């Protein structure tokens, strides 16, 4: 295939523990470390490996976000993507609008494969890949842990609740990457320098003329209810005694 399109979302780094703002209007992410969504990194790694095996010509990374999102796209370029597209929107978009934006990119670029992360670790929505596949009228191979391409088909292993499911899909298609699909490479300094010269298209969202979906309104944010801190026992007999006392054993 000529091209693989990979989505990269800029999210709060997975090591950061976010807190709800005291006025309940959102979560406080001022000044926290931002990164590529970890599952999107896995998606990009898979695309790069496919290209390195000679099964794809070009890997394009795309994101929807403000100017600051160029940082994550540059990281994607440093990992090895050939070029980047930023669909510039200062405001975050909902999953259906994101899927419509990616459909427009698909129409422009005609990739043989779109690989996204299975979920973004900020909103945990788990929607965009499936929605893109639906709008595109193409297969969705969600939660993928193995991808084997064979001409205009692909065999995918999916991580499902009861174990591993194998499916066969026709291409083009949407794949969403699960944790064990691969282990993303580390970026080396010379690659960061090289990435600065790679093309990065900055397209205002309005220019794509994508219809925005009706958003689900976020009325209020609250911290989760804390569990009460419990007791510390000294040894196994004490543990067994407490469990017996609670009727659990």
């Amino acid at each position, binding site marked *: 295939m000529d091209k693989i399109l990979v989505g990269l979302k800029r999210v709060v780094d997975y090591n950061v523990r976010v807190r709800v703002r005291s006025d309940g209007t959102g979560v406080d992410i001022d000044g926290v470390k931002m990164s590529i969504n970890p599952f999107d990194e896995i998606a990009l790694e898979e695309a790069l490996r496919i290209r390195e095996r000679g099964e794809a010509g070009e890997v394009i990374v795309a994101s929807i976000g403000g100017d600051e999102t160029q940082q994550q796209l540059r990281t994607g370029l440093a990992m090895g993507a050939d070029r980047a597209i930023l669909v510039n929107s200062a405001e975050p978009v909902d999953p259906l609008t994101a899927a419509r934006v990616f459909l427009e990119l698909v129409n422009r670029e005609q990739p043989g494969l779109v690989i996204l992360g299975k979920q973004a*670790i900020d909103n945990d929505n788990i*929607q965009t890949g*499936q929605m893109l596949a*639906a709008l595109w009228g193409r297969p969705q191979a969600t939660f993928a842990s193995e991808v084997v391409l064979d001409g205009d088909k692909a065999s995918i292993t999916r991580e499902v609740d009861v174990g591993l499911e194998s499916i066969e899909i026709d291409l083009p298609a949407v794949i969403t990457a699960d944790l*064990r699909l691969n282990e993303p490479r580390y970026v080396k300094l010379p690659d960061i320098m090289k990435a600065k010269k790679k093309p990065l298209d900055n397209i205002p969202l309005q220019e794509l003329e994508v219809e925005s979906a009706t958003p689900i309104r976020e009325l209020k944010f609250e*911290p989760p209810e804390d569990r009460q801190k419990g007791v510390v*026992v000294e040894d*196994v007999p004490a543990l067994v005694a407490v469990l017996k006392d609670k009727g659990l054993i």
Partner: protein
Amino acid sequence: MSKVLIIAEHDGTALNPSTAKCVACASALPDAEIHVAVLHSNGADVAAAASGIAGVAKVVQIDHESSEHAVAAAIAPQVVSIAADYSHLFGPSTTFGKDLMPRIAALLGVNQISDVMSVLGSHSFQRPIYAGNAIVTLEAPAGLPVVATVRTASYRAAGSGNNAGIEVVSVDAEIPAHTRFVGLQAGKSDRPDLQTASKVVSGGRALGSAENFDIIYQLADALGAGVGASRAAVDAGYVPNEMQVGQTGKIIAPELYVAIGISGAIQHLTGIKDAGTIVAINKDADAPIFEVADIGLVADLFKVVPELQAALD
């Protein structure tokens, strides 16, 4: 009035308990009439099971050869073909529902509410974001269908003993052939299912190897418990991914959860916050798991886990 269609999860013979949990969630909608859709090549047995769930007004049985296995691309257009009759479409937040429901939502032109943990009104819900670090209250747009997945750990399964009518429906939908089921390799285990077990023992990175994980299995067997693992243990290759508990794995709510050698990263804690009693065994007294544990034991797991097992045998 809310007219709700729940898409049943099943394996062709048995109904998954997640379906009765969706019914429990839907029952919290004001003035709800609840239908359950069973899609399969021959769904009679599953439809009969669904008709027994308390609170269900009707079972809609849609038989089609393409629904032999739960392929979202084949099932979604069939659901959409009857969706106009409903104000709400619910599915479970299991890999089945997570795969299927957004495809339905997109075909209906709406965003989805993922992981409903609480129903506040016909269009108002609460769900966790940022691995459960925040709970957001949402309002779905009026006049559009509400498509949602239900966080099954937040609900107890609706009861049984009902005998709702079953309507066999044939649908007129264009069903694509571009996605084909090949096989399912289910983890073979006689142990209780992780997602529904009343007791769960989980191991973390501190186990150090796949071989060492044996002591987790042995303790689980002594307790009659299901077995889970932290993402770190899955990542390190000690156990398969279907055992992962947490934000990116399974969200569970057993009566007893025993976390062994698990530090308690937030993404793990979000998967167990509805557990009844959490026991933590870890040699690091500062591990965050002790912040949420009801019973903590600061000790070397390789010493105390066999002791605990011996005490239970």
